């Protein structure tokens, strides 16, 4: 699903440049649930941003579902993001003046799906994350866990090939974190490829594979025995 070869990324900081990714080789097959770990500054978020087409690598090859991702302008990147990727952020990033339903429907709006269909689909996804009854509520009327579940529903709504989660439990307490991970595991069980950036070991252990970054290179890549989050819920 994801194929990355010798990926480099550096940022210009005044006169010096900061080499963040120093040759990443990385592959993800369909249906995997991968945790990307590392301390801050290790380059894990940069890697996720490049995979998410929010950032562009300086050199190297990136293929998503056998489509080479290169020479992207903003318009093309937006269209690819809309078609291939679903994002889950640490701070949820819901639009605060839109209801839960409207938030979930937004990627479908940008896909050009008709209103009726959009609403039906969004409602289905809200039901899937267990928030059908909260469809008309605004984000500030929801708890943190609920907000993240709405965000997950939004990320799923456009039926992406890959779900990218950047510290999805970073703003949540332990119990809620496990609830969200439980949901992510269930979605993964249905066959969705998911990448989770985290620095929490207990969250990483709930994935099927852990990739550890340090100073811009992958230092460890191992399959693990997935710990089920439902145990703790």
């Amino acid at each position, binding site marked *: 699903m994801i194929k990355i070869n010798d990926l480099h990324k550096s940022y210009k900081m005044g006169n010096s440049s900061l080499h963040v990714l120093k040759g990443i080789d990385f592959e993800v097959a369909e249906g995997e649930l991968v945790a990307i770990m590392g301390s801050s500054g290790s380059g894990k978020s940069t890697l996720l*941003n490049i995979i*998410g087409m*929010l*950032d562009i690598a300086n050199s190297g090859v990136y293929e998503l579902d056998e489509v080479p991702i290169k020479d992207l302008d*903003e*318009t093309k990147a*937006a*269209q690819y*993001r*809309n*078609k291939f990727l679903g*994002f889950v*952020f*640490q*701070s949820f*990033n*819901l*639009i*605060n*003046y*839109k209801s839960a339903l*409207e938030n979930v429907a*937004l*990627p479908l*709006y*940008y*896909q*050009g799906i008709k*209103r009726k269909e959009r609403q039906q689909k969004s409602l289905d996804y809200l039901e899937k994350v267990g928030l059908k009854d909260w469809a008309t509520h605004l984000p500030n009327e929801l708890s943190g866990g609920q907000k993240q579940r709405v965000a997950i529903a*939004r*990320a799923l709504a*456009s039926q992406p090939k890959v779900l990218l989660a950047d510290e999805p439990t970073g703003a949540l307490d332990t119990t809620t974190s496990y609830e969200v991970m439980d949901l992510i595991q269930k979605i993964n069980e249905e066959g969705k490829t998911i990448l989770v950036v985290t620095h929490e070991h207990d969250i990483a252990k709930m994935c099927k594979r852990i990739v550890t970054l340090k100073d811009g290179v992958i230092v460890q890549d191992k399959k693990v025995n997935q710990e089920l989050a439902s145990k703790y819920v």
Partner: protein
Amino acid sequence: MSRRNILFDRDTWQEIFGSISKNKTRTIITVIGVLWGIFIYITLSGSAKGMDNGFDKAFENVAINSMFLWAQRTSLPYDGFKSGRSPQLKLQDAEYIKKRVPSVEFIAPRNTRGLFDGGQPPIVVRGSKTGNYTIYGDTPEYVNIFPLKIFEGGRYLNTDDYKYERKICIIGERTKSELFEKEEDPIGAYINISGIYFQVVGMHKTSDEGGFASDSDIYIPLSTFRRLYNTGQDVDWFTIAASDDADVVAVEKQVKQVLRRIHRVHPDDERAFGSFNLGEIWNRIIGFKDGLTLMSLIVGIATIIAGVIGIGNILLISVKERTKELGVRRAIGATPSEVRKQILLESVFLTLLAGIIGIILGAFVLAGINAGTANLDDFPFTNPTVPPSYIIGALFTMISMGVLIGLIPAQRAVSIKPIDALREE
């Protein structure tokens, strides 16, 4: 990915309406600027039009290229005469003026009793009723210069009346009501003016704005007047209309020059003949009206522009506030052009919304002013309307300004990369 025609898509408008209606404070503050601008514009240009109409109405009965001309006292000695002499206008002056000044289209000599001569107006008797009324001696040409409204069934004096010195008269509305019974038809009846019986042939309705004319005036043929009051060839004043394309001020100068020659007055004596030039006054009023209209246009448009700039300003701030939201939209698939269009359409929509409310409010205020001044006859203000072209022009200005101004925040919104917008903590 399907790309729809964004302008005619219900979803686009729902998205914009959502963003606008959910940010109420911002929307209201934004709208007030343009609303105020268009309100000022509509009220000002409507008022200017109202005054325009008011002046037109006040002068509708007047040939605006006309003047009155009378004799005063000479101020310079000339040709053996001392200064301080009063020249006497004569009937034959009219023919002479017409011959020498071709731009004079109509010239009507007038005589009167009971207006400028300081005496009591002549007594008019009908049966047991009497009254004192100003009597005018007129030629048929007079109505070409100052049209009179004659009530149905009557007529004004004609050339035969003048030629045969007929004893006929046209009475005023008030004269009728004072000398006749309410239901009586005055046409054909006889009234006694200064001891002579005249047959009433018409009744006139005088508008208030016609200078010293009043609704009690009685008009008789000038020829008859001369016999009745024994005025010979003397004329009290001339009423002159210049042809439409002539310069009334120049005509006035030429006529006075001719009169000075006839009456042996010093060519430089400006005081020998007095005049009141309606054309000149009218020109000034037109200048004033045009100035007023232009000013209201400039002030109105400038206020609208200021308002639209205000919208741009607030949208710019709101784009900054909404950086995160716009970043999220970009991350989940909004293309830069979709974001740009959204900000632009928000700008245009807010501008238009404000404009339409402003137009409606302005219309209400104009209607209020109109109702309030409807009974004020001496205030020149009638039917204050704003020409559709002005409104369309204003709307066009607003839309194009809204687009232009909206481009700045729209460009700002697009220039923020989604990754920067999302990296906020």
